[in-house]
């Protein structure tokens, strides 16, 4: 019996070994590496020199513009996504005809899995000088600048992350017990108060999951501000690319990356708290 137990354990270990190795070597160790780098110093020729200093963190205000842009546009972008996404998710989950539901859902998922670079490029094409501005010039509106503005970046954000916001909200609305809606109506609630008291409240876990996911991914966004902001709207992602690939100040870049991760963790925790407190329900799974 002991032999077979041992054999079972060996098999389990063998099954988990490759994934464990991968997670340790390419997730845990790299994270420890940037944590160590972030308390180091920049070597004169670029790169890293061992040290124990918080100078890199003290230097964070040097990139205040990038932080400011990200910290404003990420929540605003996530909110804009939410306002567009909620009615769509609501329609898909509660109003759409049954046989259309899966097709419509697939139409939402497909853009999410297609290249963000190509989709952002599409807007670059549309908003660029030979796109909408050229069309508007025909009708006499000249010199309109659309691309390389914060508005263009915001549009790109909503476009890129809308599917990711719709899906978790759809999932939480789909699980909603329809009898609660009837009960609320039977007890004399108006449609509006049923929506606020029942539907919205019970879908809050989905809303918070979508909001925190979109917000976290936006904190690390690079392509959208680069292509649609044209070097005028800098995000933390732009600062990181600059520090790691151009000016080669790795310790400072690591400090920014660690800060970014910490902010993400705070966002996740706060979102989780809010959804459990307001709905009393469990969190919706990320996947």
């Amino acid at each position, binding site marked *: 019996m002991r032999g077979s137990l041992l054999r*079972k354990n060996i*098999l*389990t270990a063998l*099954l*988990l070994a*490759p*994934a*464990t190795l*991968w*997670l340790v*070597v*390419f997730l*845990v160790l790299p*994270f420890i*590496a*940037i944590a160590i*780098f972030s308390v180091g110093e920049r070597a004169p020729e670029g790169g*890293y020199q061992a040290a124990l200093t918080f100078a890199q963190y003290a230097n964070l205000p040097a990139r205040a513009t990038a932080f400011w842009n990200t910290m404003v546009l990420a929540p605003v972008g996530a909110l804009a996504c939410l306002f*567009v996404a909620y*009615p769509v998710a*609501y*329609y898909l989950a509660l*109003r759409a005809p049954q046989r259309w539901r899966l097709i419509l859902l*697939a*139409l939402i*998922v*497909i*853009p999410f*899995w*297609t*290249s963000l*670079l*190509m989709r952002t*490029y*599409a*807007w670059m*094409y*549309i908003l*660029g000088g030979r796109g909408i501005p*050229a*069309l508007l010039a025909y009708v006499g509106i000249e010199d309109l600048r659309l691309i390389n503005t914060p508005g263009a970046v915001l549009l790109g954000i909503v*476009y890129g992350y*809308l599917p990711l916001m719709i899906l978790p909200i759809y999932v939480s609305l789909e699980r909603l017990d329809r009898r609660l809606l009837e009960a609320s109506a039977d007890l004399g609630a108006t449609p509006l108060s049923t929506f606020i008291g029942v539907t919205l409240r019970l879908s809050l876990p989905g809303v918070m999951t979508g909001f925190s996911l979109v917000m*976290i*991914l936006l*904190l*690390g*966004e690079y*392509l959208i501000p680069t292509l649609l902001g044209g070097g005028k709207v800098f995000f933390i*992602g732009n600062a*990181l*690319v600059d520090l*790691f690939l151009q000016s080669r100040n*790795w310790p400072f870049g690591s400090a920014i*990356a660690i800060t*970014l*991760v910490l902010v*993400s963790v705070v966002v*996740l925790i706060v979102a989780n708290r809010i959804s459990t407190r307001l709905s009393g329900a469990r969190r919706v799974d990320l*996947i």
Partner: protein
Amino acid sequence: MRAFVVAVFAFLYLPIALVVLFSFNAGQHASEFTGFSVQWYGKALSNPFLVEALKNSLFIATTSALLAAFCGTAAALGLQRVGARTRALFDALLGAAIVVPGVVIGISTLVALVQLFAVVNPFLASLWPTDQPPRLALGYGSIIAAHGLFSMALVTMIVGTRLSSLDRNLVEASGDLYATPLTTFRSIVLPQIMPAVIAGFLLAFTFSFDDFIIAFFVAGAQTTLPIYVFASIRRGVTPEINAIATIVLAASVLLVLLAQWQLGRRKPSP
């Protein structure tokens, strides 16, 4: 509300449709469609740098998705056999691999690998008998590994979901009928999780093929298709890019549809 939903779907698909339309434009400019032509496809596919980048991307996506499918499936099977605490730790790490922004994955992998190579390369050189020892460097391997991290986590989650809805009675029945564990696995478990494994592979491939930001950091001297496209977009928008974008979009739509079809397939009922 229906009008709003229709508008949102139009918002999602019109820009893509425009890019596809203008990839067939005979003229240069986005403001006018001057006639049908496939000249930009010809131009794109006769550009040696682009073809090279495309080949690199296909190789990287295939390899990382295959590795992820194997390791992720193994991990999902293994996780069925461990205690709640190990499982929770694994789930947290897998969740982190999926949620942490690509920019952070990219730079942390870059930093870790460069440090690792700085230790390993002199060591290899001291052991190597000849004057030209192999040197580890950023390239195919590092992109495959970094993409594989996200992909493996994804496959583990998709296959894990399928495993948790697996009909245990069939597994027990198979054991009762004196099938060896291996036979049970091959004839009961594997056919039931196969659609999830295939879907995971396809999504992993799509992810790797489309990823720009992680590869941007760890590619070293290599170029993938998204890196090439990014660089040429920054030099200026040309209709040639519309043609490439159309090919890439069509490929990923096809792969995602295949994946969804695999995931939606019903388990064979006994």
